[in-house]
């Protein structure tokens, strides 16, 4: 199992989510973050104050996946998040020691295998 952490541009988020759902990645967490990745800072003016915005808005996506899902997940993020300009972000793949699914107590592989939700009305 791996934890995939991706930092992407907020304006690419919709494309990334779409690509992930196409790749059948069903479980993920996102958070709004600020960061700096060497991109050009933009300059803002508020009355007499001129500032350089050194931190750009980014979105962090975290996905726990089983091994055979790593490749398609990374590929989906790479293709959907890329604009070709500096500041597109990073994808990191980290080892996971242990995963538990809280609802059932399932562990590891079973915990990151999506279940078909029971039919509800």
């Amino acid at each position, binding site marked *: 199992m791996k934890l995939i952490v991706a930092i992407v541009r907020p304006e690419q988020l919709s494309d990334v989510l779409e690509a992930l759902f196409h790749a059948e990645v069903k479980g993920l967490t996102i958070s709004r973050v*600020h960061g700096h990745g060497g991109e050009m*800072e*933009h*300059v*803002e003016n508020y009355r007499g*104050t*001129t500032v*350089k915005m050194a*931190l*750009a808005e980014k979105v962090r996506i975290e996905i726990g996946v089983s091994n055979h899902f790593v490749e398609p997940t990374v590929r989906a993020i790479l293709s959907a998040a890329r604009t070709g300009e500096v500041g597109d972000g990073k994808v990191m793949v980290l080892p996971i020691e242990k995963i538990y699914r809280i609802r059932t107590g399932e562990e590891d592989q079973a915990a990151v295998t999506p279940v078909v939700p029971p039919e509800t009305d």
Partner: protein
Amino acid sequence: MIQADVVWMLVSTALVLLMTPALGFFYGGMVRSKNALNTLMMSFAALGPIAVVWALAGYSLAFSPGSAFVGSLSYVGLRGVGLEAQGTIPHVLFMAYQGTFAIITAALISGAVVERLRFSAYLAFIVAWVLLVYAPVAHWVWGGGFLSTAGALDFAGGAVVHVNAAAAALVAAKFVGARKDYGRRAMLPHNVPFTLLGTGLLWFGWFGFNAGSALAANNVAALAFVNTLLAPAAALATWMAIDLYREGRVTAVGAATAIVVGLVAVTPAAGYIGPASALALGGLGAIPSYFALIYRARTTLDDSLDVVAAHGLGGATGAVLTGVFADPAWSGGAAGLVAGHPEQLVTQVASVAVVALYSGAATFVILKLLALVMPLRIRGRVEGVGLDVTEHGEEAYTAGDGAILISPGDSAYERLPDALATSDGGRA
């Protein structure tokens, strides 16, 4: 000169001026947060250049004695526009009151082109549009032009303001093209409370717009005032009823839209119809706009904030219903279908059509010429970042994290033009 009239028109002028910032909040709440300032600024910015060109030339083209189609240049630079009486109020006050109408009409158009039109192109467009479209159309209806000769009834600007702006909006939305996310992605309103706030302020200001159009503190003003209360109320009630019937719940953005549609619809009718008719007009006026809004979102027309559905259709419906409900018992002269004067309906339909056609055609020509000298759209990548940063160098909502103070001479200053390079030419 009548002192009471002067007081009322001073107040009305301020009320109508307030509608433009109010429109900024109405529109600004409906865009994404990265475009909030840009959208607000499209309304606020109209307050400056439009008032200036109105005083310099627009007023003269609209209200000086001229041909059937446009005024003369006799009031250019406000020459001859002094403290003498125009009706029962000082001439300069009449000029200022009419100027506030020109400002909001120009700002109305912005709703069709938010989130992708370059700000400088917008400024150039509205200045040209007010001189070449708004001023002549105002002359046709209110300045002694051919539509007033033909007997068209437009009390406070259903055709002059709303149909006029909406026709321009339709052409501008088509010409500038849809936002790149349009139809591909959900683009949600970022601040619905802003939209409600703007709606409330619009309604408040609209009392000056409609009741002020009596140009006096008299019975006609009182009638227009009451109708400006009742018609939007009926529109809101109707809208909520349809919402409840169709969806089972009432939406806030829908309610805000309903109020605006009701206000738009009663604008041409305000001083010509009785209060009971105003209730009917507001209720009926809401229906076409309600369904047009739903339909428009499924088309390729990215009239982003529905200027056509709300103002165009609302204004046209109101203008036609003015021809139905105009009642000499209330208006003191003008009569419509129910008062046994069906010909008025034809005049109303024709006046709406003429205004819409001219405004649409002239808007196309203005945009075509502007596109020759400047790019109209921002670059596609920049559209993702949002226009607040690229067009204004500011953000509506910033915590200030990572903001580093710089002063002239710093390298970041040199890079400014790069960072703001927003255009790669023309329509895209």
